[in-house]
């Protein structure tokens, strides 16, 4: 029953936030504000504009980084998927990047590119690109053989097979890869803010922590998690709408 499902979702939110509230009142720790206190700080920051200016700064490297990763990532992924030579040459790089904790490279990037927008964008890129490339190349390689055969049987040129069969067939997985890339990009953006120089939301978090304004700190964290989750959910819904009836799913994490 749709009503029951919605009711339970609301109930579980109430339980979690309620537990938060109670834990804050006990208090579990002097550094743990109640849910209501955090929400109060959130509305205050939204009201007086600090939240929005902060996001304007934080989202810059995220948007730029994700855009670059998407374009480059899909292009490289297509190339790797279609060409055996490129697959041999580039796949190992991205496979290693996928399994490795790329965050370790951040000090190096800071050293090389300073503490400005460039290094933040680069952090987002190195986090987002591997999963996009790997999903794209895998989707291309896993195009059902019988569909490609059908294309050849009906006299399609190589280019027509790529454009009209392989790429449409690969689209659901490519899109899923983009979604995972955005998710990784968020992590990169926040890491960049917390580690390189705090600007935007990262600044709110570090500053409020330093002056022991815990409600604001928790509010900022809550807001960014909320934003990430909402945005990724929108992407997932779009994916369902765009690709209804197609096989969906992602190849790697």
């Amino acid at each position: 029953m749709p009503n029951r499902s919605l009711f339970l979702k609301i109930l579980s939110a109430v339980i979690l936030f309620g537990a938060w509230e109670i834990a804050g009142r006990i208090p579990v720790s002097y550094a743990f504000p109640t849910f209501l206190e955090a929400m109060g700080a959130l509305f205050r920051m939204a009201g007086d504009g600090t939240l929005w200016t902060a996001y304007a700064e934080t989202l810059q490297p995220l948007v730029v980084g994700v855009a670059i990763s998407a374009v480059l990532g899909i292009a490289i992924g297509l190339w790797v998927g279609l060409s055996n030579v490129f697959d041999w040459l580039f796949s190992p790089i991205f496979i290693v990047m996928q399994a490795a904790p790329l965050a370790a490279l951040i000090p190096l990037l800071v050293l090389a590119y300073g503490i400005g927008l460039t290094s933040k964008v680069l952090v987002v890129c190195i986090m987002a690109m591997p999963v996009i490339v790997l999903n794209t190349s895998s989707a291309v390689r896993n195009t059902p053989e019988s569909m490609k055969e059908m294309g050849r049987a009906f006299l399609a040129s190589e280019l027509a097979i790529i454009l009209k069969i392989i790429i449409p067939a690969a689209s659901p997985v490519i899109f899923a890869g983009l979604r995972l890339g955005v998710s990784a990009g968020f992590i990169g953006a926040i890491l960049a803010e917390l580690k390189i120089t705090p600007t935007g939301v990262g600044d709110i978090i570090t500053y409020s922590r330093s002056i022991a304004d815990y409600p604001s700190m928790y509010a900022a964290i809550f807001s960014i998690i909320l934003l990430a989750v909402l945005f990724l959910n929108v992407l997932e819904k779009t994916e369902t709408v765009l690709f209804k009836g197609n096989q969906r799913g992602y190849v790697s994490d």
Partner: protein
Amino acid sequence: MTVFGYRLPGMSSLIVWGLLWEIVGQMGLTFFIPPLSEVIATLFAVIGTAAFQKALAETAYAFSAGVFFAITIGIPVGILMGKNRLLDELLLPWVNVFLSAPLTALVPVLMVLFGFGMKSIVITTTLFGIWIIILNARAGVKQINRSLVEMAHSFGASPWNAFTKIYLWAALPEILGGVRIGIIRAVKGVIIGQLLISIVGFGALFELYSANFLMAHFWAVLIVLFALAFTIAEFLAYLERRVAYYAAKR
């Protein structure tokens, strides 16, 4: 890829990249990329040092503890969610939220609540790994073939027997898949934890080397770390294949 009719092994292009690294390094193109040979020499020198061993021990400890908790908490929770509809409907939204949320944002919270030490790092590691483990354990339980359940009942299996002899094995491939991805995430978690929380373990080494512009050292330790992470990932994949030989292609 085949060359002159010989199939080249999977990761062999890394040799080409290694050569490129060496050439670029020897040419002195950029200060940040010393020759690969120098990096490897430094690697062997560094591995024996006390500083490195300490870093490795600290990281290994945090990683193992984090993974231990992620598995021992995650799998039972996932199984329970798979079997109990009410619990599932209450918890699943949150598992999905935390699965896709940028967990890095939670690290400052952990820092203020649990201090700047090993405890926070372990919790970070656990948090990074646990959600996918829960999700896959749940999926593994849910996809158990209905006929197997009915078969167990019809042959009068006790709940314990049914679980240990049938359900566990039926769900195992999926569970192991989740553990593999969870462990890879945990590796990232432990490093992110070290970079943000307290400067111990490998995080400390990276800070130290980059602050002192010891590029060869930096790359050496990075290679060790990446190699370790990659080996763990491959080993888990191998385990998964061995145990799950009976799993249908997912």
